[in-house]
């Protein structure tokens, strides 16, 4: 079920505040955020966010195509290097 339009996009307030501050101070370093659930808004384009994946902040450079998606989409939370058996099979 998609979100009702009348509510507008969901963004955690602190993300907005940090983004605003970063833009005013001239775009430079990574903005650390923990809010993976926030929507990427048009005014975030060009900024770099460090999106937390549970372990560290993954730098995400926001481009125009990303608008409307959530930050969490760009910061994978799982590590998977394949099964041990896969490696053996490759060696042969």
């Amino acid at each position: 079920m998609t979100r009702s339009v009348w509510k507008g996009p969901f963004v955690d307030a602190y993300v907005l505040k940090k983004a605003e501050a970063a833009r005013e101070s001239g775009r430079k370093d990574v903005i650390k955020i923990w809010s993976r659930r926030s929507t990427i808004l048009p005014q975030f384009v060009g900024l770099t966010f460090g999106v937390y994946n549970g372990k560290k902040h993954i730098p995400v450079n926001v481009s125009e195509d990303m608008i409307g998606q959530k930050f969490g989409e760009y910061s994978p939370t799982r590590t998977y290097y394949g099964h041990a058996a896969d490696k053996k099979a490759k060696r042969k």
Partner: protein
Amino acid sequence: MARIAGVNIPSGKRVPIALTYITGIGPTKADEICEAVGIERSRRVNDLSDAEVLKVREYIDENLTVEGDLRREVQMNVKRLMDLGCYRGLRHRRNLPVRGQRTSTNARTRKGPAKAIAGKKK
């Protein structure tokens, strides 16, 4: 034999059924086309007049994306996701289900035929 939307040559079937042989046209779209062009649903392709076939062709050209164009559009959308580095793109890259389905079992459509794992039996 009628040639509609390039390569497709549907046979002596009923018109709505024959139209679904075109990529991008399913039962619903096929019915819509028949209604818009004014062809009865029970008629068969081989007793359509040339003018009627032309009308169908024009309607599809104007209103729908089909065949190669549609495939290209879908491919472009997938490619966009892959280039973006987002989760959905990663899933496409690995050829795994994109919409959160389980992969422990099933997911054979995306993963292809099951691969035997050496030495799995006790």
